[in-house]
């Protein structure tokens, strides 16, 4: 039994900004009351129904009484020409014995944005479009007069197009470059009246780059500081909202997400009961593109201690001195490895010591009556980065006279 199920109630909606046609339709009398795999063939014509410019198939599973949707993006601004759409279908489901025959076509549905233009008018489309550097862009002018002597200019250089119909000419711009933040100027001159009354700006933005050197660390096990190199700035003047990029952090173990205020850093709170492992996705997004990078790490592998405090020297004698310092608390008092550098007598000696809260080290075999400089820095035992140095100078006492 053949089932020519014809698509019905085809409607076409126009989105000028995105230069796209949105189709919706239904299929009635679906047997089996359930689902049926079907293939829909769609044809799109421009200017006249006979001038088919696009044809393609769309396969989907159709449910009872479902409204189906499909979209098509036009390289030509939809204001520049009337478009026509029709659709037919065929069942493509194992439940239904072959062969199946295509339904008849639906009637052509018209998608028209611009009505006729008044005499002596001249319009250019698209209006203030935002594209990425390197894109191909098609523009058109629509003139109210048929006999026209019109020439068009891109940033002052004449461009040459093709006539689409007596009122419309189209111009294909290949691989458009970024010129300036305020966009590229396009206008046309009607030489019969020597007037410029149609102009538009093509906002060409740099391509959003994938964030580089994405890294996170903590100094106190309370806050994670994430930083990255955002790469080129895609923000344009007068098109800020659409062209600027936003950065969000998503942590998959906790499922939490944060919209970052800055373009190159973001803080993330570490809760008391927080997990050890972190799996971050940093997403850069603007109106035209989205880029993501990931980072998986163990919190204790990303501790970057703050510089030590209160470096002091006690019990200074002619040949010894006790160096003390404090480290700022990190969570549950991680053990830190501290490195001491002692400068004196034209040489440097190095010493290491493990520390929890207060650091202490005996500097011995020193020269009497000598000025020394000592400094200390610390790192987590799961080494990530050294803290900054903290240091002080001291002078050993004079040696007591020999008996």
């Amino acid at each position, binding site marked *: 039994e053949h089932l020519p199920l014809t698509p019905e109630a085809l409607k076409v909606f126009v989105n000028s900004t995105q230069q796209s046609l949105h189709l919706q339709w239904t299929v009635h009398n679906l047997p089996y009351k359930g689902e049926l795999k079907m293939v829909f063939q769609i044809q799109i014509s421009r200017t006249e129904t006979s001038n088919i410019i696009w044809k393609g198939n769309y396969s989907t599973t159709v449910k009872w009484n479902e409204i189906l949707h499909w979209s098509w993006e036009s390289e030509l601004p939809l204001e520049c020409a009337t478009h026509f759409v029709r659709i037919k279908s065929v069942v493509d489901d194992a439940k239904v014995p072959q062969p199946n025959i295509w339904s008849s076509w639906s009637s052509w549905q018209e998608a028209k944005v611009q009505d006729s233009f008044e005499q002596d008018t001249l319009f250019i489309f698209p209006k203030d479009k935002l594209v990425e550097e390197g894109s191909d862009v098609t523009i058109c002018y629509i003139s109210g007069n048929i006999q026209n002597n019109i020439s068009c200019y891109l940033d002052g250089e004449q461009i040459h197009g093709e006539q689409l119909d007596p009122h419309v000419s189209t111009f294909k711009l290949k691989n458009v470059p970024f010129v*300036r933040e305020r966009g590229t100027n396009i206008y046309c001159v009607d030489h019969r009246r020597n007037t410029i009354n149609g102009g538009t700006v093509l906002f060409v933005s740099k391509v959003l780059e994938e964030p580089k050197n994405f890294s996170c660390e903590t100094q106190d096990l309370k806050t994670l500081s994430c930083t990255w190199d955002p790469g080129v700035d895609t923000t344009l003047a007068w098109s800020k909202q659409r062209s600027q990029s936003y950065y969000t952090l998503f942590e998959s173990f906790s499922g939490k997400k944060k919209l970052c205020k800055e373009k190159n850093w973001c803080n993330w709170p570490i809760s008391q009961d927080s997990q050890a492992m972190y799996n971050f996705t940093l997403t850069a997004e603007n109106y035209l593109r989205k880029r993501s990078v990931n980072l998986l790490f163990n919190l204790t592998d990303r501790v970057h201690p703050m510089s030590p405090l209160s470096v002091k020297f006690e019990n200074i004698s002619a040949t010894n001195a006790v160096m003390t310092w404090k480290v700022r608390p990190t969570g549950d008092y991680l053990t830190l490895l501290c490195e001491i550098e002692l400068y004196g007598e034209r040489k440097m000696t190095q010493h290491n010591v493990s520390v929890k809260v207060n650091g202490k080290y005996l500097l011995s075999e020193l020269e009497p009556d000598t000025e020394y400089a000592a400094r200390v820095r610390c790192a987590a035992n799961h080494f990530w980065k050294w803290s900054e140095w903290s240091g002080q100078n001291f002078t050993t006492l004079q040696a007591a006279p020999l008996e």
Partner: protein
Amino acid sequence: SHMSPIRSLQPNAEKGIVKELQFLSNELLENFEEKGLPTSSSYTLPCFIPNAHPPNNINISAVQTYLKTIGPLIDNTTTTGEIIEHLDKLAPQNASETNISVPENAFEKKRFILTILKQFSECMDLVCKSFNCEAQQAT
């Protein structure tokens, strides 16, 4: 209101201000000019007070209003702010209430700005002539 402004400045001081205005107006224009951007005869800056004689013929409140509108559009409220202050020194006038309507479409908006900045620059050149700016100031 086009009341003749009350002048309290010394002539030399006025000439200094006008020279600075000429410099700043040219700077604004040069920073904004773009390849392939024509001016438009649809926009006019009411720079002079009709039938008034230099140096009292600058329509200061109108010019200030236009610059207050354009400053944010060109991300340059510093220079326009400086110009507005200099104009205030020439003859403080009560702010004009007129609202300037700026074209919505980006291309026309650019043409509007370029045309006004060009006319303001030409206007300051004329004012400078009337103040004999080029002549060396008496030391």
